[in-house]
């Protein structure tokens, strides 16, 4: 934009790279702040301390074995007590047979015996082997999985080729492993290699996963708002669709919608001023997730790479110059992105430019005057969204 160019021309050599004539006021500020400049190097002691903690966290399997045995014994005693006390529970109590290791695990699941640092209700994946017909305990709530390749890890241990991931337990795939999760009878989720996923909830009202890191592909055929995927910085709400979601360990990632549409919500922990409104991401569109700011600005996946990169710069760091380039590059079939720029907290000059482009293809809806829209009045923004949504499905799709 011209304004940006003019501003660029005004940067003095001293402000730019400390060449040219010294500007006393800038030099004074430099002198005042210099004592606060970062000094020193990497605190390797801290790195080593952290590594010890990580190793200790990964080690407990050697500790868990005796703990597990002890817990098993206590649990078995507790089970005997229950048998004697509650005859009606006998049928649900596992027989002490060699094949009951799984049932013992189930008992551990139910046991309140503390296990020194491991959550009292720590669960483990239950394999569904040939003896899975054993009916003793109702299966804990979870999702069935089957490995398409390799062998997943469950809560730190090998999970087998198929089985059940109980609520609360992390399922991890290494570089050679991929897994399919059944989401009750409404669809399935393919978990890619190098991923970490957890079943948060699964019942007839809500099926919710948490993607810690990695990539998943969800295909769901169900009423809207029944299937959710949480990440550190956003929640994907299924509105009847197929999509891919990828995040790194910090929560940075991207959502790409293949069919239907998904709503991407910011995390509830964010403060009101940090929260961004939910993003509707229709088929053929994608939306980055920034760990700090949450969902970014939806954009058609067909858009040029340079445009999407500029949009990401705006979403991640508020780069107004990159945003100006985005707005310049957007066309009449990009009302999806234009709308979310108008509805954002970008500088008003950029939002006004985006609104101008919107008005070139869509008459302002009732109650959404230019002033009200730029003032981000909720009703005006909602009116714009309702007016534009039909374009995002049949017309603007790739």
């Amino acid at each position, binding site marked *: 934009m011209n304004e940006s160019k003019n501003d660029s021309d005004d940067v003095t050599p001293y402000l730019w790279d400390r060449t040219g004539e010294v500007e006393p006021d800038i030099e004074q500020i430099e002198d005042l702040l210099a004592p606060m400049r970062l000094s020193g190097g990497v605190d390797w002691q801290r790195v080593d301390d952290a590594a010890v903690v990580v190793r200790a966290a990964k080690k407990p399997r050697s500790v868990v074995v005796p703990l597990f045995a002890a817990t098993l014994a206590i649990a078995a005693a507790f089970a005997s007590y229950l048998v004697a006390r509650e005859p009606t529970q006998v049928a649900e109590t596992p027989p002490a047979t060699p094949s009951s290791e799984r049932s013992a695990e189930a008992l551990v699941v139910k046991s309140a015996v503390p296990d020194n640092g491991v959550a009292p209700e720590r669960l483990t994946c239950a394999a569904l082997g040939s003896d899975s017909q054993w009916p003793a305990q109702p299966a804990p709530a979870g999702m069935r999985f089957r490995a398409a390749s390799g062998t997943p890890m469950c809560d730190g241990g090998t999970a087998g080729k198929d089985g059940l991931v109980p609520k609360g337990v992390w399922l991890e795939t290494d570089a050679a492993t991929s897994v399919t999760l059944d989401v009750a009878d409404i669809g399935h989720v393919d978990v890619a290699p190098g991923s970490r996923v957890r079943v948060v909830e699964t019942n007839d009202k809500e099926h919710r996963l948490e993607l810690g890191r990695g990539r998943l592909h969800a295909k769901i055929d169900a009423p809207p708002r029944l299937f959710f995927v949480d990440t550190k910085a956003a929640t994907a709400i299924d509105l009847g669709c197929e999509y891919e979601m990828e995040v790194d360990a910090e929560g940075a990632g991207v959502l790409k919608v293949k069919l239907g549409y998904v709503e991407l919500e910011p995390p509830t922990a964010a*403060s009101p001023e940090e929260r961004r409104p939910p993003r509707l991401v229709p088929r053929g569109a994608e939306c980055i997730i920034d760990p700090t700011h949450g969902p970014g600005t939806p954009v058609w996946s067909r858009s040029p790479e340079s445009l999407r990169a500029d949009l990401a*710069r705006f979403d991640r760091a508020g780069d107004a110059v990159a945003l100006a380039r985005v707005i310049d590059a957007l066309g009449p079939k990009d009302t999806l992105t234009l709308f979310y720029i108008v509805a954002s907290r970008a500088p008003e000059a950029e939002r006004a430019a985006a609104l101008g482009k919107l008005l070139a293809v869509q008459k302002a809806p009732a109650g959404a005057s230019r002033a009200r829209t730029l003032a981000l009045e909720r009703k005006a923004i909602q009116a714009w969204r309702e007016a534009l949504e039909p374009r995002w499905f049949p017309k603007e799709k790739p």
Partner: protein
Amino acid sequence: MNAPGATVGELVLRARAGHRDAFDALYRRFAGAAHAIALSSAPASEAHDIVQDAFVSGWSHLDELREPDAFGGWILGIARRRAVDFRRRQKRRGGPTDELRESSAIAAPIPTPEAKEALSAILALSETYRETLLMRLMEGMSGPEIADVTGMTPESVRVNLCRGMKLLRERLDGGAR
């Protein structure tokens, strides 16, 4: 030892192989910008700690970085999130509200009242301007260095410096400095 002029990608690959000197070199290159970013959101007393925390995390998760050349954006993103997380935790504990962020950020070892005033004026600016100005005025980075380290285009850095400095002068002049 690291070859002089080694690229960021080369340093990351060496660091992944366990060479601490390579990670030290990455720290020297990016820690100043990370410090400016941390100070932009968190108290000065915590900013150094946040930088160390970010680099400890970076060292632990270096294998998860797909593009070694993208280390800069990645480590600065970690620092930014650590700083924001700190602020959120403060809020949940009933700490200062966002409106008081700048006074919270300067409630730390600031050398002089004049320095406190200058820092307070910078922290009152929007995030983009305050981060860029802190890199330039406090960390002593030049415009090209800021562009190189942050991944912003030189044009964006120029605009941020220009607009930010203009607003800063207005604030300081308005404060009868």
